[in-house]
């Protein structure tokens, strides 16, 4: 039977890590992910895991050590946030192109500057093209469940790519909430042991990793890497199905909430989705047909499936918790819009940048978003498509 617990999001992923008992964990503290290596090093200190914990001197070295360790044949985890993820940036690409299935707990926090320790998605969105699988989590429960599944998705022979499991800094990472844990042995059985095909410490077969790659081969390597990312979508669903059998908790590429008959919908990621669900229930009681689509797997991006799920909607607000500074909107907006391109009678789409640097998102804020969508449906006029939610501004003259 599931174990009823109350944990913060950080303790939840640390617990998943303990249950999996990786071979190596290399990490450097950065708010708000710091607690993850703290919890984990306590597990090491108390002999609850026999992992080699490498307390590196920077996130750059954390990711570098992860690359060395995973290439050596060891299942390797790390955790970071914000500037730490940015410092890893170069090596994120190397981990992915070397096809090393490292698993990371990414605790979302705004990127400097100005320096800010609170949640937004500018950190992981900045890494979106590094070749990592990205899975986003609304709650501590999802962060825990997703981490367990991510290890298997990453290591699957048809995928072989690193994965980051994202959740909102402080909002879920430091909030104690109810959670259902899975028994240790069940998690261990579900995730299994890591047996890579080739690895540096294989005494039967030496391996060289990380070549200089000339134009004659580079593109074939990249194309092969893309195939791993394409396969990630199928593999994520297969593993979600097995996970559901074990826990009864269902995961897909994304979650649809009261979307079936919705006229107005929002597309959203992470913790604010929960707040939005409360707003939806409230508006539904008022007879308004509203719903949401919460993206779980952002890399690879399930474009066709999203387009299919949204095609009946009249107006959509894509909610971005980071900006792209392209004067068009955020990264999620660009992806969702292009997913819907070519759809017959495509819905009208606007983009809201919200919640930057921990700006709180209330139920009422989400209600405002739906109100603007109904205005668009009513008038047929989309108006400004690039909008900021809850930003103080001069009133229009």
């Amino acid at each position: 039977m599931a174990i009823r617990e109350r944990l913060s999001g950080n303790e939840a992923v640390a617990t998943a890590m303990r249950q999996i008992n990786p071979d190596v964990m290399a990490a450097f503290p950065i708010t708000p992910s710091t607690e993850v290596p703290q919890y984990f090093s306590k597990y090491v200190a108390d002999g609850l895991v026999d992992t080699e914990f490498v307390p590196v001197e920077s996130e750059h070295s954390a990711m570098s050590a992860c690359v060395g360790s995973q290439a050596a044949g060891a299942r390797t985890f790390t955790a970071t946030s914000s500037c730490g993820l940015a410092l890893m940036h170069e090596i994120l690409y190397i981990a992915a192109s070397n096809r090393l299935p490292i698993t990371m707990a990414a605790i979302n926090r705004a990127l400097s500057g100005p320096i800010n320790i609170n949640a937004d998605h500018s950190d992981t969105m900045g890494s979106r093209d590094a070749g990592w699988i990205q899975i986003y989590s609304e709650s501590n429960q999802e962060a825990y469940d997703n981490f367990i599944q991510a290890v298997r998705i990453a290591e699957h022979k048809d995928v072989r790519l690193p994965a980051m499991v994202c959740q909102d800094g402080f909002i879920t990472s430091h909030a104690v909430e109810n959670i259902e844990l899975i028994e240790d042995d069940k998690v261990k059985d579900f995730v299994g042991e890591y047996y890579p095909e080739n690895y540096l410490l294989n005494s039967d077969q030496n391996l060289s990793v990380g070549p200089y790659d000339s134009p004659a081969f580079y593109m074939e390597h990249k194309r092969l890497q893309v195939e791993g990312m394409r396969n990630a979508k199928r593999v994520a669903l297969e593993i979600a199905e097995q996970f559901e059998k074990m826990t009864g908790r269902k995961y897909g590429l994304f979650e649809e909430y009261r979307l079936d008959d919705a006229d107005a919908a929002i597309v959203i990621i992470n913790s604010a989705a929960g707040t939005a669900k409360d707003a939806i229930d409230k508006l539904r009681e008022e007879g308004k047909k509203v719903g949401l689509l919460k993206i779980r797997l952002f890399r690879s991006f399930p474009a066709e499936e999203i387009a299919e799920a949204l095609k009946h909607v009249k107006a959509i607000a894509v909610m971005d918790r980071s900006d792209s500074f392209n004067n068009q909107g955020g990264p999620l907006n660009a992806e969702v819009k292009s997913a819907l391109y070519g759809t017959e009678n495509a819905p009208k789409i606007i983009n809201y940048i919200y919640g930057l640097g921990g700006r709180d998102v209330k139920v009422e804020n989400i209600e405002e978003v739906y109100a603007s969508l109904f205005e668009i449906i009513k008038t047929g006029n989309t108006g400004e498509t690039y909008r900021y939610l809850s930003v103080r501004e001069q009133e229009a003259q």
Partner: protein
Amino acid sequence: MEKKTNINETIVWQDITPGGDILASGNSAEFKTGDWRTDKPIVDMEKCIHCLLCVPVCPDTSIPVEDGKRLEFDYDHCKGCGVCAKVCPVNCITMVPEGK
């Protein structure tokens, strides 16, 4: 263990090794750098005392050793730098222009 590299510029992406991994250790020997040479070392085996001082100074691992004696140069890989000729205490290695 793969003995010879079967990867060349006609390979399709489906067959290439993930991440550029290479399993055949030391297979660079299949790549001939001997044609980089403009000067060629010639060893006079009559004069050679097999002190082996020329062996460790070779950047290209091109002086094979067997039973404590140096063998003929590995001209497939020797780039003709001439470091070996300089360290030979009995001057048994001469550099001559390639092709002569």
